């Protein structure tokens, strides 16, 4: 017997994620991958391509769009769909569109209508019974307790007290008509694992993660990128004061809701370096976790948010 080949933690996390994806494809009727174009989605998509190679991943990508994403995100999204050979489905909640819901005038309603409601509508419209999501357990406290196969009622509700026990790597994907599961293949990855994996595998990510001179404005004490100046002017009713700064993003969402950080990190090792030396948590800039005191995400999830 030769010396054992010791697998690194990234090799084991990769093998686990691939195993999970194959189980879903083998057992679900109509799976889909939720694709938000962020770095976690990028890794998840890459893992899917590995899991089924040489076949293309046998499910579509679903982007629940708010129409307020960065232009660079739309570009990468379309490119990755082409390169992976997967069908891309883009869903925009027609009611949010009709009512002109936007992050400036509507605050939390913006996330609720475009993302939470939009996601539910999209899943119902296509009848998906299993949806891959890129959530990680290290992101937030209630995520730490969620299963990898997370069961949802017909109305997309999550009951944290009634989760199926998950033993070994045996996943129970059985469900009744109308019910569905959310599947989190990268549950056990940390933010550093994600960055390291992108680095080692040259996973394409949105250039906004890297520092560059970009037009910025300040709003409610935070720094934002002026991604679509005419639209900003329309919604704000005035021209914001635009200053060019070297910035990058630690997390990507809707451009008026995603705070930028001033940075000079232009390469992946520099980004990782900055991430490791930083002293605030990744989701800190996001509004969604802070509603309803400490239980923000848990309440949102019970209502059907991813």
């Amino acid at each position: 017997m030769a010396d054992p080949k010791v697998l690194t933690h990234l090799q084991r996390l990769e093998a686990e994620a691939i195993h999970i994806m194959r189980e879903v494809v083998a057992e679900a009727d109509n799976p889909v991958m939720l694709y938000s174009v962020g770095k976690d989605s990028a890794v998840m998509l890459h893992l899917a391509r590995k899991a089924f190679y040489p076949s293309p991943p046998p499910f579509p990508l679903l982007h629940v769009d708010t129409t307020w994403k960065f232009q660079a995100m739309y570009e990468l999204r379309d490119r990755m769909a082409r390169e992976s050979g997967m069908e891309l489905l883009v869903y925009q909640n027609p009611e949010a569109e009709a009512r002109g819901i936007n992050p400036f005038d509507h605050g939390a309603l913006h996330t609720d209508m475009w993302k939470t409601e939009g996601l539910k509508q999209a899943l119902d419209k296509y009848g998906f019974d299993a949806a891959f999501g890129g959530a990680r357990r290290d992101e937030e406290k209630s995520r730490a307790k969620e299963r990898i196969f997370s069961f949802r009622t017909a109305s997309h509700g999550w009951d944290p007290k009634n989760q199926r026990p998950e033993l070994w790597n045996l996943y129970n994907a059985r469900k009744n008509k109308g019910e569905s599961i959310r599947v989190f293949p990268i549950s056990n990855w940390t933010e550093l694992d994600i960055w390291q994996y992108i680095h080692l595998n040259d996973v394409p990510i949105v250039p906004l993660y890297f520092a560059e001179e970009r037009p910025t404005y300040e709003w409610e004490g935070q720094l934002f990128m002026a991604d679509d100046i005419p639209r900003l002017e329309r919604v704000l009713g005035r021209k914001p004061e635009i200053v060019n700064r070297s910035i990058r993003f630690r997390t990507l969402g809707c451009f008026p809701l995603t705070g930028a950080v001033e940075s000079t990190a232009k390469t992946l090792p520099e980004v990782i370096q900055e991430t490791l030396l930083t002293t605030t948590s990744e989701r800190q800039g996001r509004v969604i976790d802070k509603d309803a005191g400490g239980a923000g995400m848990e309440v949102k999830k019970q209502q059907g948010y991813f």
Partner: protein
Amino acid sequence: MTDQTDVIYKTDDLIAQDIDAYLEQHQHKTMLRFITCGSVDDGKSTLIGRLLYDSKMIFEDQLAALESDSKKVGTQGAEIDFALLVDGLAAEREQGITIDVAYRFFGTEKRKFIVADTPGHEQYTRNMVTGASTADLAVILIDARKGVLTQTRRHSYLAHLIGIRHIVLAVNKMDLVGYDQATYDAIVADYAAFARSIGIERFVPMPISGFKGDNITGLSANTPWYTGPSLIQHLETVEVDTTTDQAKPFRMPVQWVNRPNLDFRGFSGLIASGTVRPGDTVRVLPSGKTSTVSRVVTLDGDLDEAVAGQSVTICLADEIDCSRGDVLATADAPPQAADQFESTLVWMADEALLPGRAYWLKLGTQTVSATVQEPKYTVNVNTMEHLACKTLDLNAIGVAEITTDRAIVFEPYAEGRTLGGFILIDKITNATVAAGMLHFSLRRAQNVHWQAMDVSRAAHAALKNQQPAVLWFTGLSGSGKSTIANLVEKKLHALGKHTFVLDGDNVRHGLNKDLGFTEADRIENIRRVGEVAKLMTDAGLIVLTAFISPFRAEREMVRELLADGEFLEVFIDTPLELAEARDVKGLYKKARSGQLKNFTGIDSPYEAPESPEIRVDTTKESPEDAAERIVDHLLGWAPTI
């Protein structure tokens, strides 16, 4: 005190000065999964909070929130309450307890760690077994002031049961006993005696304080008499299971057949044990056919060798049958297949085990229908006593025989978790109701073979010039099942069809006279009737059965016994009020007065069919009309309603 902290964790300098060197180091880290178990106040959450805190997995904003929360709801006065870091769900924060399995992450220079935080409450055996199932190591926490408790024994038993090879006995809160060596030694001796008695051969004891940080990262000056490793040092050097598994024979359950085009056919799976290389001879189980590995395919290129713990796609040199549920194994030491086993079950659902009921059993990538016999015994997890039992309730652990409807490829759990561990799934609710571990197959399963008959099933049916079928009448007592079944049989008989009626009351006079009316007996009643009906269809008969058969799961079990399309569920739908008003046999009256127990509709449920082939509403249709319609449906003369 924790003078080695900096050596182990302090990588900030390297990050700042040479990020590439840091990344190189991180890239070669291995991963260890472990669980922490202890009683409610043993300081489990505090210990995990401490590990996260020391490894700088806590950011400033989280720390600020932690400090303010510690003052508001903390239990440590003005000091930081590390437990608040890991108490996740809102309900828990209010109750001050951990109610489910939570997974936490931290790392040192050498390893990444995933911690399953499992609760110490009696009612949550289920959660601990869940957390332990993926762990390489268990940290059993003991409060130094209290010593070995009932819960310590339970956690150790469960960790051992689930096959964890590395056990750490962390005697916590040493600061509260003045770091007294005699106290520590007495607890370790006490635990050693217990551990031996349940078969734990080795464990590593250490005196710690999660709250103060003693012997967590480095060795503490407060315990100069302790010469073993610190907790982190030990966690960093223990051998992980995937490495151990490489020395075992090759096994890979096939998850998915990868077939992008006619030129490529690969078998995708996660290697459970051993290693595989192109050129290796492998056997496909259960068929037993052999072939040679031609390629080990990944997106990053073909591999010369793949090992336990890797997800790969394997191509074979020959076109042989192989699909999901099959197992690829080394040709000269393949696992066996069997359909009867002795196994340990950990029951995880509120609804107790029903011996005889069919559940889905998932093992590796195989899913089959399985029934559990009445358990041989249940284990009292506090005293390890074996007790007689009829069933298993939530959190009960027992040993029972299991029969599957077809042979499955397996290994004893002690030899491999992947082919020895299984879950049971309720067929109606789809809930995961039990975790199980196979011990060995039962001999009779291997020795009873099907006797092949020369006059086939088809020949029997052809001679009678009919399609065999089972008309399964179900409904409340007094709904009219027997009446309508009788009319249907008369009509079929007049048409020259060969029929037979199995009636509930009649069967209970003979074949099933040993059975009562408990849930378990009712299930066995239906199982036997189903098997008899199946034999009769093999003989070419049209069988009519008239049984209340109140449970959906058992009706589905009979449906699965029979060939596709041969089971016709006939729901005689009579409202309870009407059936009770008729009360032909006077049974409802007896049930209402308490003379008759477990009577369907009164104190035992009736689960109506969701989509029966035929439904008869007796408030709208006469027995004669219903019988006519059923005959038409059976013989394919008219569309059904």
